[in-house]
């Protein structure tokens, strides 16, 4: 297994810590003038999403984590697993509930997502930054109402609930920013 020295630490580097794959968020070099140097590192556990801080002695090495991001198309869910495919190779992967996690409410068949693989098995799924989904449920708004006001909740075909302007109706397609969960615009078909 490859290793990294603390000198190579930088944001985005994937390492193994306590047997879990982690990603380095921030690395600060700490050194008393006449003493031992340390690397104070902020790390995200990629399995749990938890962010922790950990100190290393400068010059020490840690095991790298075999983590890669791959673009995949979301195919379907069988209730237990979510199935994805690498478009170039037709290779298929099935992600469990843990890996899909919060992304589940944005998943739409055929959309291209980022699948993070650890040792070639699904670790997490990141939906596209923008998705277009149709509205399955929302209070009927008043005709002629323009935007403004606080809006109203709307349930989308994927199950997500977002706030939309009052004029948006059931059956309409809208564009949503998945990073903030906010309505962007109506989509004209």
């Amino acid at each position, binding site marked *: 297994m490859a290793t990294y020295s603390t*000198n190579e630490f930088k944001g985005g580097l994937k390492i193994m810590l306590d047997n879990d794959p982690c990603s380095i968020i921030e690395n*600060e*070099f*700490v*050194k*008393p*003038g*006449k*003493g*031992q*140097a*340390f690397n*104070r590192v902020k790390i995200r556990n990629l399995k749990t999403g938890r962010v922790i*801080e*950990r*100190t*290393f*002695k*400068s010059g020490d090495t840690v095991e790298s984590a075999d983590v890669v991001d791959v673009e995949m198309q979301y195919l379907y869910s069988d209730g237990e697993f979510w199935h994805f495919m690498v478009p170039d190779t037709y290779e298929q992967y099935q992600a469990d509930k843990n890996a899909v996690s919060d992304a589940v409410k944005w998943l739409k068949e055929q959309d291209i997502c980022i699948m993070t693989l650890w040792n070639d098995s699904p670790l997490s799924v990141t939906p596209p930054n923008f998705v277009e989904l149709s509205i399955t449920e929302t209070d009927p708004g008043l005709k002629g109402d323009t935007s403004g006001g606080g809006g109203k909740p709307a349930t989308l075909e994927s199950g997500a609930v977002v706030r939309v302007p009052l004029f948006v109706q059931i059956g309409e397609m809208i564009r949503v920013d998945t990073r903030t969960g906010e309505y962007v615009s109506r989509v004209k078909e």
Partner: protein
Amino acid sequence: MLASWQPVADIRQLRQRAQLLAAIRQFFACRDVLEVETPLLCRATGTDPNLDFFASQFHRTPATQTLFLQTSPEFAMKRLLAAGSGSIFQICKAFRNGETGRFHNPEFTILEWYRVGFTLQQLMDEVADLLLGLLGPDLQRLSVLRISYQQLFTQHTGLDALVFERWAYRQFADGQDYPEADGICGDDHALWLDFLFSHCVQNKMPEDTLCLVFGYPAVQSSLARLNPEDARVAERFEVFINGMELGNGFFELCDADEQEARFDSEIAHRRQHSLPDVAKDKLFLAALKAGLPDCSGVAIGLDRLMMIVSGCDAIAETLAFPIGNA
């Protein structure tokens, strides 16, 4: 990404830096301290295992000689002191390999001075005078706190810095959410002190305070003399402003034999830990044998002082061309 040709520090910063250097020179001129220059490229360097150096090859046909970029001008300045220079100061570049970060640039500007006949207390007074005089009007109101390492350490950790009890140190580290400390520090008292001081003490120093911490534990004595009344304590101090380490001062060790013994043990430590080998600086040792006058000396990192003077968050912002675009 291609580094930019443009300086990182703005021109206003460079002007401030020039003023700072001029003010320092004036300070020492008023006190009759002689400005000196010593080589940055020397045939020997310090053996301190915690300092990584840059080595270079000097082609002096037909032979090649290894020369070292100085981690500080200390040894050469002490040779001048032994030769009877009297009190001296120097502003120069120093080089430390592998040190880069928010507070570190591998090439940095150091102010180092030695006062013949000064006790450590007198030198601490002078450090406070100099620093307060260099800071702008809003910073000159900093209060000055003198506190012993042992007292400061106990205040923030409840532990005794001079008495090493691994279980107690570990218990405290675990409680502070540093369970990794025991694996890193093991039975090494000095390493524990480095860890706990930098993680749990430095960041809790009072704000708006120039903090002079004296009486460092002997395990961290480096080039300082030991306190004649308590051999657990070294005649060493450090100066901090708002928790940022700015300088390190010693009542200088004059005993050539003890100095040589410390070099030997540092060299042994280097071999044990597969660190690059260095030879003892024989010219420095010869100067000590000839006799170093009783003196106290201190080195201040001027780029960090610039951070405070100009309110920057990172050392790179005080430099025209930090290592990233040097």
